[in-house]
């Protein structure tokens, strides 16, 4: 009941927002923010909510509309609700109503993705969550190319996922298996490789991982800040979640086979993203490439087969969600004030906007993995896990991007906030209370997570027992 509400209520409410007259867009925004908060409360208060399931298909394989919390999905749903709430608070502009609506639809679809206990249902929401973002990009106007890149890249992945799901269902007889360790899925080695390839292709594009990443920087650069906050914070985790929820339990051998390849991809994403971020001029693109780098690290963890690294992966997934959302929201605020994202044109804002500077500083610090913040907790767990699982060189190589991260994150912060004030830039007011309200919970969350990730990790390790073959 509750779990289906988590999916349906935001979608329906979002669609209903279109009935609100444009004049009352502010009301729409407020109402949707309240709804997001309620969704958060609903999920947080009922972690033991019972599954909801309705039969869908019976032949050639059994499938069901089966939604329910899992050890990982619970946290992801919370993260999503939190980020959506913050994002909704900073929605602004003439398209306020549409963006708010699409954000809610997106939230509903992604809740469905994370709560799906059925692979086919997972695939359904996988495709469904493309539409709101595509529509936002399209309605943005001049971003046709970006919209196409986003849609086609991800849709190709989605179709591979679809084919793999079909084959999975035919061979396993049912797709209603996620989070069900008892489900003995008999997939032969011959087909397993192909099916895994299908899943992996979709997941890698979505994450994204080098060399499937080129859709991401443009999408992030063109999306309005609230939406990009949600997309980068949560949607980019869908693929990793897929690996953890479908790959690890049911395609363990194939994942082990693919490990070398995935390590190569992960490491190249890790380094590639970091280096490009060092050279970018556009603040949003810097953060986009930094995500590429960070998500590459998580990919390593996912394929490491080490429980320590899995724990780190979950912490880092949540952490990255929190700080990248904060980063994009603050950068959005900067852009909205100064009408540019060009690091070479910005500068000296810190003097007049101390709170803005503080928010950006905190987010950047979390992103560069400052010890004591969430990013560090995830990194150290993942890296030690990798090293301990016997992947010494990957772990050591993965240390380099940490230094680079410090360099490019500080570069972003300093070239926006420090240095002499630029007279040609419009000097606007400091962080508004709405923006503050949007950023504060995120910051609080990643500070808390950095000090005591145990609450999350413990849940993960407890619930993550289904993660088979963990060293």
């Amino acid at each position, binding site marked *: 009941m509750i779990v289906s509400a988590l999916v349906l209520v935001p979608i329906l409410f979002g669609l209903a927002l279109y009935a609100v007259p444009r004049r009352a867009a502010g009301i729409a925004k407020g109402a949707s923010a309240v709804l997001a908060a309620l969704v958060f409360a609903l999920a947080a208060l009922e972690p033991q909510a019972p599954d909801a399931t309705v039969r869908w298909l019976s032949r050639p394989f059994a499938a069901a509309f089966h939604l329910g919390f899992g050890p990982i999905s619970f946290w992801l749903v919370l993260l999503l609700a939190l980020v959506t709430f913050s994002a909704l608070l900073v929605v602004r502009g003439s398209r306020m109503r549409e963006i708010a609506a699409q954000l809610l639809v997106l939230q509903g679809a992604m809740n469905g993705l994370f709560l799906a206990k059925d692979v086919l249902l997972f695939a359904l929401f996988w495709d469904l969550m493309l539409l709101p973002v595509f529509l936002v990009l399209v309605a943005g106007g001049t971003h046709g190319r970006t919209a196409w890149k986003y849609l086609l890249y991800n849709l190709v992945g989605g179709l591979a996922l679809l084919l793999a799901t079909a084959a999975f269902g035919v061979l396993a007889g049912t797709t209603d298996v996620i989070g069900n360790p008892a489900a003995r899925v008999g997939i032969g080695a011959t087909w397993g490789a192909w099916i895994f390839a299908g899943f992996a292709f979709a997941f890698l594009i979505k994450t994204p991982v080098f060399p499937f990443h080129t859709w991401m920087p443009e999408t992030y650069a063109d999306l309005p800040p609230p939406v990009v906050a949600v997309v980068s914070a949560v949607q980019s985790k869908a693929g990793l979640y897929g690996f953890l929820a479908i790959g690890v339990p049911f395609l363990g051998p194939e994942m082990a086979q693919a490990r070398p390849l995935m390590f190569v991809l992960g490491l190249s994403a890790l380094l590639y993203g970091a280096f490009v971020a060092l050279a970018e001029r556009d603040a949003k693109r810097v953060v986009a490439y930094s995500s590429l780098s960070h998500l590459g690290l998580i990919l390593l963890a996912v394929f490491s087969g080490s429980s320590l690294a899995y724990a780190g992966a979950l912490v880092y997934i949540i952490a990255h969600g929190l700080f990248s959302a904060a980063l994009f929201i603050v950068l959005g605020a900067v852009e909205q004030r100064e009408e540019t994202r060009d690091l070479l044109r910005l500068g000296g804002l810190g003097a007049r906007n101390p709170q803005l500077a503080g928010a950006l500083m905190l987010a950047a610090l979390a992103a560069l993995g400052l010890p004591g913040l969430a990013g560090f907790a995830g990194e150290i767990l993942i*890296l030690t896990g990798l090293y301990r699982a016997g992947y010494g060189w990957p772990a050591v190589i993965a240390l380099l991007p940490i230094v680079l991260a410090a360099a490019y994150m500080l570069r972003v912060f300093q070239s926006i906030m420090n240095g002499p004030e630029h007279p040609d830039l419009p000097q606007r007011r400091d962080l508004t209370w709405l923006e503050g309200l949007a950023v504060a919970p995120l910051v609080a969350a990643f500070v808390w997570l950095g000090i005591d990730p145990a609450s999350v990790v413990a849940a993960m390790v407890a619930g993550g027992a289904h993660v088979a073959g963990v060293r």
Partner: protein
Amino acid sequence: MMLAFVWLAPLAGGILLWAFGPQLRSWAGPIGSALIGASFLATCALWGSATAPGALHVPLVSWLHGWNFGLQLDRLSLIWSLIITGVGFLIHVYSIGYMDGDRAFARFFAYMNFFVFAMLTLVLSDNVIGLLVGWGLVGLASYFLIGFWFDRPSAVAAARKAFVMNVVGDVGMMFAIFLIVAKLGAIGYADVFAGVGHALDSGTVFLICVGLFVGCAAKSAQVPLHTWLPDAMEGPTPVSALIHAATMVTAGVYLIARFAPLWSASAEAREMAGVIGGLTAISGAVLGCVQWDIKRILAYSTMSQIGYMIMGVGVGAFTGGVFHFLTHAFFKAQLFLGAGIIIHALANQQDVRRMGGLRTRMPFAFLAMLVGVLAICGVPGFSGFFSKDDVIYGTLAAGHPWLYAVGVLTAGITAYYMFRLLFVTFFGPYRGDVDAAALGIAVEPSGPSVAGHHAEEEEPHHHAPPGLMNVPVAILILPTIFIGWLDFGEGSPWKQFFRGFPGFDAAATSAAMPELASTGLVLAVVAAGFTLAYARYGTTAALRDAVARLRNETLRTPPVLVHAYYFDAAYELIFARSARALGSWFDRVIDPHVIDAGVREVAISSEWLGHLFRSFQTGLVRVYALSLVFGVACFVAYYALAFGVSR
């Protein structure tokens, strides 16, 4: 919980001042100082329980099995905490005067308090990762304070440089942590030390030490990770005194002392540390001889003194090394604060060539500096004498004659450049009004020393320092002179204090010569250094045509020294520039012209196919009919092959 208070009071101060700074205005300073003072008193109150067997331990959070975080106050961390909070308190008080009238007065104290908190985290942590957390946080605090005047591009750059270099160190420590966790699965010091010799074979211990040493080199400005320290002088002088002289930069010493059991277990590691320390000591000292910015002189001397400490703890003379940290904390703070008085009085003039003759103008500053100089040069009776002697002799005792030689030589150089500083600054005529060219100073329009924090102020003031600045200096004079006696002779209270401390009782091989002889040698060399300095800067002749001489020296300084052995240039070229180039190559070539191009080709070619098939649609019925027949032909051909032939 007392210890938690010691630890959190500064944090509370930091947050309070950061959040409500504007409202608190001038109260920010006193509040910040008071909190540090309280923390200091609390630390003193904990002396008993800290020195008691089994130290003082407070568990905090636990991440995973074996990943338990807690605070621990034992003899080593006690010493450090006392210095951090004690000297920190004095410097806070001093800053009230020094930073008076700065636009971001409250922010300054917020950062300072935060730094103290971070440093306490570092020394109080009872495990490797907690240590790393503190390690990172002090780096952050130093970043904040170096870049305190963030409208100066030079300060911003220096801050970033310092932070990134420190992250290199963090990464080194992470590597050490990999090994520890991989081998032990636990992160507590106790577990680590227990593991030495069992779970941790000698090779692993060495690797761990290497990792740790990278961290220590970055934090303590050891060659080759030292280049950030001179630039760090962009920060306000009290910051230089507290962070970049007294406490943070000595964290490396703490690190090695803390992991003494590991170092004791690995000769190679000791070798490495000793060599690097010695190298740093001498190269820093040499660079100190050619600097003109008073703070940079002190910065290089700091670098060289830390070299001593590292050398000491490296070779296994832990008590000596730590003791040198103790004395250095006092006399270096003393020197910096003295310098601060001068800088403050001269409205941010930091170039000693523009000073001179200040002995009469500000006698108190002279006294302060004099005491500091005597101490750092190791003049008998002053604190530096005892500690430095310990270290130098320790190298010999540990059987490193070369390091010994380096130590002795460095002592002489130290004496030279410190007295050079003293003479040029305080003797002869005042050269503040001499134009820069005459002194051979390359004038840059907006040098860092010009656009200071007083830029906002109305009257360009040349005033005597407020009492608030003198008091702490005066207080510091006492330990600067007398603290050394703690370590006088065998069985000194200091040696007693650390008897039986884990790893400190490294078996020292018998020395090649008696300690007294060594002391004599050192003193001789120091005297030589002093004489040289006097001959070049102190004699009446030298003082008379000081301007000309300084000009000559300025122009004659070998460029290799002016550019500090070209480290910065090399790093800029090898790392920074190439990394950026690679990144922009990825961004401008690989992404658009390789990956995207491939995808675009697919898209374009499918569009092209679409138009191709479209062109097949000529609209002519007969062509359509032909295509139909063509299809039929294909079908028939297939059936002929599949079934006709088979019959």
